[in-house]
């Protein structure tokens, strides 16, 4: 409907307004001075930078309000560089705004589309080229070329194969086995049940035979958190209860969601919280998920004591630790 109505007419570009610097030579002179000052400030910044680099001790600390004790070398180096750069920019822009011509210019656009003749000529040329190559007339060439191009991509993909070994069943395995002692991390000291008070926790790793180095790949799967509660606080089925020892329960510290270290243990609520995505596990119910995105409880390690009274694993983990993967049998 508004199509039939007359739209308000375009009054055209507004008339050019002269700046002060265009009409008043004094203003122009002043602007010139301002630009010069800005550029000089930049030069000053470079001087400060050079001074900071050679003249300020690299670990001199000075006290500044808001920042506190600050490294003077780093601060003045940065401020010098910032000044040196910033004021070049300010000078250039001020120059452009006040002294360079400010007449707006009109340029005209043309449609992106080529003219019909050009398009026709292009189609013609393309057809001619194709005909000269004879693609249409020699189907065997066309098909074998297609085959070759289709297959050539395989080589670079295949070349990537040696990026790493196949996982096999590595994701299911840890260094825990029957009889392996629990040792503190860090410290590598074996622990007795009496070392852990009710309400206490300990970060542990499996004891390694002398000479074997603990690598990050081991820590990424072996890390275990020991927690001691009063045995009557457990709410476990008999099997899982038999995996604990005098109120001490052991869980994999590697989150069953995305593998962060779950170790925020709240003594009051007996909850374990993962700081990455806030999955919350109930320790008394075999690390059942009570909040957050994790879908599985943390794997529980079966523990007991050896004849010297030190805590040991009584069996390896009965499931893969850490985040899920396709081959994982979680049922």
């Amino acid at each position, binding site marked *: 409907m508004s199509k039939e109505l007359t739209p308000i007419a375009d009054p055209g570009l507004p008339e050019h307004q002269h700046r002060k610097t265009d009409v008043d030579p004094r203003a122009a002179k002043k602007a010139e001075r301002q630009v010069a000052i800005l550029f000089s400030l930049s030069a000053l910044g470079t001087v400060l930078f050079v001074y900071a680099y050679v003249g300020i001790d690299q670990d001199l600390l000075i006290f500044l309000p808001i920042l506190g004790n600050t490294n003077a070398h780093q601060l003045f180096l940065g401020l010098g560089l910032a000044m040196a750069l910033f004021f*070049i920019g300010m000078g250039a822009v001020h120059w452009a705004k006040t002294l360079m011509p400010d007449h707006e210019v*009109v340029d005209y656009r043309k449609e992106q589309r080529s003219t019909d003749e050009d398009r026709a000529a292009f189609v013609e040329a393309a057809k001619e080229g194709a005909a000269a190559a004879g693609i249409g007339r020699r189907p065997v060439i066309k098909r074998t070329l297609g085959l070759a191009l289709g297959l050539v991509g395989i080589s670079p993909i295949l070349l990537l194969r040696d990026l790493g070994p196949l996982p096999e069943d590595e994701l299911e395995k840890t260094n825990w086995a029957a009889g392996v002692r629990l040792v503190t991390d860090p410290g590598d000291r074996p622990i007795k049940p009496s070392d852990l008070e009710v309400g206490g926790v300990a970060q542990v790793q499996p004891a390694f035979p002398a000479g074997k180095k603990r690598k990050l*790949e081991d820590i990424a799967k072996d890390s275990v958190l020991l927690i001691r509660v009063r045995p009557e606080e457990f709410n476990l089925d008999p099997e899982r209860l038999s995996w604990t020892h005098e109120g001490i329960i052991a869980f994999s510290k590697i989150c069953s969601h995305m593998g962060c270290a779950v170790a925020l243990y709240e003594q009051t609520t007996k909850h374990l919280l993962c700081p990455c995505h806030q999955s919350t596990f109930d320790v008394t119910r075999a690390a059942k998920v009570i909040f957050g995105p994790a879908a599985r409880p943390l794997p529980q390690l079966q523990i007991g004591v050896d004849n010297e009274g030190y805590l040991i694993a009584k069996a390896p983990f009965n499931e893969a630790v850490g985040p899920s993967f396709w081959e994982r049998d979680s049922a």
Partner: protein
Amino acid sequence: MSARERVAGTVANYVDERTGAAKWLKKNLKKVFPDHWSFMLGEVVLYSFIILLLSGTFLTFWFDPSMREVEYEGSYEPLEGLKMSAAYASTLHISFDVRGGLLMRQIHHWAALIFMAAMVAHLLRVFFTGAFRKPREMNWVIGVGLLTLGIVEGFLGYSLPDDLLSGTGIRIAEAIIQAVPVVGSYLAYFVFGGAFPGEVFIPRIYTVHVLLIPGIFLALITAHLMLVWYQKHTQYPGPGRTEKNVVGYPLLPVYMAKAGGFFFIVFGVTAFLGAVASINPVWLFGPYTPGQISAGSQPDWYMGWLDGLVRMAPPLETHAFGHTISWNILIPGLIIPGIIFTGMALYPFIESWMTGDKREHHLLDRPRNNPNRTALGAMSLTFMLVALINGGNDLIATHFDLSINQIMWGTRIGIIVLPPLVFVITKRICLSLQRADRDLVLHGRETGRLVMLPHGEFIEVHEPLTPERAYLLTQHEQLPALAVPETDEMGVANPQGARGKLRARLSRASQEQIPKPSVDEIRELESGHH
């Protein structure tokens, strides 16, 4: 002719005789660029990229991208004698023992945050003003590609120092890779060269971070700018500005001085941030080991929404036939981001399909004049913001005396309820603004002056708008919605079927407008007044 002019002439002659550059340059030195502050956002991105290249190159001179275990012997006392990777140790070396090293590290990281922030701001400007419409759809797609790559590049960059915080991020990335159905554990073993964390990951991502992605960036940015150059910049509507012209300042000298000056300003401000504000203090985080973690582990902001989505995901896993599918990772970590980025890339084509508008557009929309698009943008933004807020829920909880559980539930519900709500509200606001524009054109501006008429009635004096303003408020076109007949002339049901109906509905929704005033209506009103 002065000596200086002679030299310049000789050089110009030498170059032109070999390249024929004069012909191209004579035209392009006078190239017109429209001036508006929002057009500078893209420049901030470009300049941050240059800052990143410069500061990054500096960092490579000392950074040792190796996961070889070393014992720290540098000058930062609290880490003295600890075992760590060479990558982490060399980052400490840059921070404490190379003069200006910490400054460059901080400039590099601040520039990265600003690079991403300016990119998002630029994207929003382009979206809300409709600058992505024909003929610029390709450039929009390139832009979406740059944004995606930027996120990856940033993540790899802050992962390089191999500190406790970034190592945790890599651990999470590994879990996402591992969660891919069927091939996940294979992919993870290939990427990490075996079990996590292994010893090859940092060197590998180093090559990707300093060579592969910056190379792609350079190519895409070049294409992006060439298209801007070739297609000429869009402009905001206004008197004298049409679809057929472009009004602004010539490249030489004004635009060049301003843009060049702005580069130095951006670099200067980034250097200032690098000087006064600490960023990524890796020496406080400690070296990475998978058994440790810090409270409040978050990624950089441009990944924060992803982390927020992962946090709020429901605990869903499918266990069947000896296999596991982690929906709690796949949905927030891969599926939703996939939908968001694909949808974003396709949006120009979807909009033109909805409206049936296949013409070129060089004049920008005022956001209110396209309520549907503006509402959609606000809705998407709300979705991302809610996710981002949940990404920092632990810090919000401690700083505002809330509980993470409350925030989590708030955002879980909010991410479903708020976006549609914001859509409706934004659309209403746009239409009200259109109505306000219409009133303004028809009745003029309220001056606030009250006048008593002879017969005692008080009226407020309305001042008519200037022709320029009246034109600006009415220059936009209002297309009718696509007409899709239910049946064709033979009485047969519409051959386009459900798709056609959907298109008609979407078109109707997108063309919901307050009719803009016309000269005829103004005249009618004026004659009524007299």
